């Protein structure tokens, strides 16, 4: 329901830069009327900058039209596995935008920011309780930065133990998210991949074989990316510690177990959480998130700066831990996201968090049984927060790929699940409904997927061409990568 030019046959061909008219402006700026200071020398200054010139109304229409070409949680079910796309309470946005919070300057004396700091302190305490890991830094800006923090903490601890030279390996399951091996590599380690056993848990024999004095740590996602409990992880923890290595938890999947079991109790030394997933802060089209890192007392001295501590006057202070790995950001992390997470934690309390994990797991299992038989289920056992099917049968029998089936789901009004991850599942279809979907939505999703499985047999071409009803059809990704066009000015108003 948008106007010509905004919904035209080729909306994407005209960027803001191609719209408007020279001389138009969307806002005015005050003019300095006092004594003028001469500008710096001309060679330090620029001539001009090319930016769109649009009136305010035009610019508003352009971005409003762009928004209509997006699908979010508020549009419908968004069962993207591993991403925990759940409803984002609006009250949290309201809270984070309270002017006293939003306008706080990061260099403020702590006395002037106690409202923010006290809130973060309580969040930190809550996360310590929930993970069973008593020490926390809220600094990491996202999961991957939390991982980096955790691995660097292991580095520093080994260094202090004088074993860093020798321990150069980190073990990572083959089902892990790509950030795990990438992080280990960024921290200077080599990565050894651990295979997954038939039950979907780590292969114990391999772990026992690999664990030696060259291992710095093991990164395990719990529950794992198959949506399964990592059987015997508490025993594996013992083995790892016996070998002198550390056990790292990728806590991105905390939604399955919040309030029910704790990383610390299982023997993990350090974990990161993805607050934008489990604590329901909006994903924002790819951030901002927050990836707090939680650890044992042993690793606490290495936490990234800052951490929070109450001083004798009852003031919450920003502290650099004794042997900190250092800062991860110029300031204190994505505070606006942390405030939202705090609000979420307080809106739920312990019972609420347990209700979250209970319902999240029930929803995934409900979907599992509804789809049972229609798609291959490589690890056919009860799941936790998500379930990973395989489209192998459809590929084999009808030359229809999971990719096609995912695209077809768009025509049914759903955001597709995660596909082709975890890598160990052929034609993976990784579905995480989350607790905020009503049963009706899960049933509708199952019906759509069943219809698609039938269509794979009856009318594969409809799947190959899908989606048919989205604002745009399948795009030429190969061309995008082969002949990269990455900014306006390289493009004619109409490409090619």
């Amino acid at each position, binding site marked *: 329901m948008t106007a010509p030019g905004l919904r035209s046959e080729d909306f994407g061909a005209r960027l803001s830069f191609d719209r408007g008219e020279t001389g138009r402006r969307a806002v005015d700026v005050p003019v300095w009327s006092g004594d003028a200071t001469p500008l710096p020398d001309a060679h330090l200054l620029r001539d001009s900058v090319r930016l769109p010139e649009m009136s305010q109304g035009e610019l508003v229409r352009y971005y409003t039209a762009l928004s209509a070409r997006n699908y979010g949680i508020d549009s419908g079910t968004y069962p993207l596995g591993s991403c925990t796309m759940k409803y984002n309470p609006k009250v949290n946005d309201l809270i984070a935008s309270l002017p006293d919070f939003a306008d706080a300057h990061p260099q403020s004396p702590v006395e002037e920011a106690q409202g923010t700091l006290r809130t973060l302190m309580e969040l930190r305490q809550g996360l310590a309780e929930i993970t069973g890991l008593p020490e926390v830094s809220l600094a990491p800006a996202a999961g991957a930065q939390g991982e980096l923090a955790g691995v660097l903490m292991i580095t520093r601890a080994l260094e202090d133990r004088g074993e860093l030279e020798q321990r150069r390996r980190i073990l990572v399951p083959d089902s892990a998210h790509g950030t795990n091996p990438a992080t280990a590599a960024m921290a200077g380690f080599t990565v050894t991949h651990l295979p997954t056993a038939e039950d979907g848990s780590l292969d114990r024999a391999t772990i026992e074989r690999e664990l030696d004095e060259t291992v710095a740590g093991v990164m395990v996602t719990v529950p794992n990316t198959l949506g399964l409990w990592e059987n015997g992880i508490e025993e594996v923890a013992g083995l790892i510690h016996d070998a002198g290595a550390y056990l790292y938890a990728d806590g991105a999947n905390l939604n399955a177990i919040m309030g029910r079991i704790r990383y610390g109790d299982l023997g993990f030394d350090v974990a990161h959480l993805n607050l934008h997933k489990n604590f329901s802060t909006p994903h924002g089209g790819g951030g901002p998130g927050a990836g707090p890192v939680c650890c044992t007392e042993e690793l606490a001295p290495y936490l990234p700066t800052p951490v929070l501590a109450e001083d004798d006057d009852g003031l919450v202070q920003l502290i650099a831990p004794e042997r900190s790995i250092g800062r991860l950001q110029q300031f204190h992390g994505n505070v606006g996201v942390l405030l939202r997470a705090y609000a979420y934690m307080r809106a739920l309390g312990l019972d609420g968090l347990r209700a979250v994990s209970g319902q999240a797991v029930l929803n995934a299992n409900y979907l*599992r049984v509804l789809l049972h038989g229609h798609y291959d289920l490589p690890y056919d056992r009860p799941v936790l927060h998500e379930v990973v099917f395989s489209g192998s049968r459809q590929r084999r029998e009808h030359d229809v790929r999971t990719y096609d089936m995912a695209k077809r789901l*768009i025509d049914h009004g759903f955001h597709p699940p995660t596909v082709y991850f975890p890598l160990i599942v052929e034609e993976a279809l990784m579905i995480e409904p989350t607790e905020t979907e009503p049963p009706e939505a899960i049933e509708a999703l199952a019906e759509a997927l069943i219809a698609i499985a039938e269509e794979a047999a009856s009318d594969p071409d409809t799947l190959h061409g899908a989606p048919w009803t989205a604002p745009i059809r399948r795009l030429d990704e190969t061309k995008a990568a082969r002949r990269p066009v990455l900014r306006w000015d390289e493009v004619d108003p109409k490409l090619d």
Partner: protein
Amino acid sequence: MSSSLAGSPHPYIPATEADRARMLERVGVTDLDALFADLPADLRDPAIELPPALTEPELIALLQERAATNAAPTRPSFLGAGAYRRSIPAIASHLTSRSEFVTAYTPYQPEISQGTLQSGFEFQSVVCELTGMDVANVGLYDVASATAEACLLAVRVTKRRAVALLEPIHPGTAEVVSTYARGAGLRVDSIATADAVSDEHACLVVQQPDFLGTIVDLEPLANVAHDRGALMVAVADPFALGMLKAPGDAGADIVTGEGRDLAGAPAFGGPSLGLFAAGLPYMRQMPGRIVGRTNELHGPEGGEGEPRTGYVLTLQAREQFIRRERATSNVSTAQALIALSFTIAVQALGPRGLRESAELCYQRAHDAARRIASLPGFDVPERGPWFQEFLVRGPIPASELAVRLSERGITAGFDVSDRAEPEAHNALMFCVTEATPDAHVDTLIEALTSIGDEA
């Protein structure tokens, strides 16, 4: 008070008891606990201490009270040092709050994510224009981690194992570079002049304006770096780039920057927004996500129409989810929504508005500095042309000056008195921008006058 009606569903969880019973039956278990049977029994359901749940009105009341214990936004403050209050066009927050943008995730499905993707492409275009570079990604966490990633890129490209940071640079940036460098086993040299760049350095990192507010002539520095085979990394304030020469035009190979302040409120430092742009040769070495322009494989109307233009994540072979331990970076979720707000704010200002704002900021800061310099007992030592931050020395020690101002309800400039630069000796660094209310400056002048009189 606590939530009413025990057993009733939480507002965030739709399933009712009846729903749950029906679903459990279908799944074939008797209760929710049975779904967790795989978990080690002895560790299940530990005691966890959390404060009680609050209803929405209680939550709002609590956090309003909390927020009120921060300094009020109306308190005059002259802090800068990496975070700057800006006048952001009102349409930015309006548009950025559209839930289609807010509640989407990384655009894995381009057909229903053109909103995020096309605006990501707009963002890259804006960043390239401002910095004078060829390629930009859709943003990293913040300026400091972006600068660390720039150093890692330079290391990958030059195969050298050290980086040089030219002082004065933001201490937070320097620290983050060190954090990342330590992991990669790199040396970080803090240098006072570009002469110290050697052929061991993968890059020279220069902040523009520098940490003490001075506008840097980047070109000679870039020449030195290039002479020694190092890349030139400029860490530039995108707002100042409204009037300052684009670092790309001065020879920078990589430009990073902090986008938060042009996107919205300071938010105690975050959400932040790391800008990252580079020259074409480094395109396939870039960290982070990149949006590319392409077209449909088949046009609309059953494939007969002309294929339409669209946007996709591209060059993904660099990224962790494909490349894993050989990725250019581990970054995944970044700061997309802040990048959107940044894009809209900059585009709303437009070419002239951005220039005018930067000049207004410059004029207002210089006017305030002039007024302070004219007060008996006060001195504003200059290190060269500067943008929005200036050093102030008073008749009393810097830290005491800050305390005296605070007693008068004013948050002083950032204390730089312990730095090595002679001009910083005993100085506070004040910041005045286009968004600092005139009345705040007047209040400051009054307060300084009376402090001067007392001394």
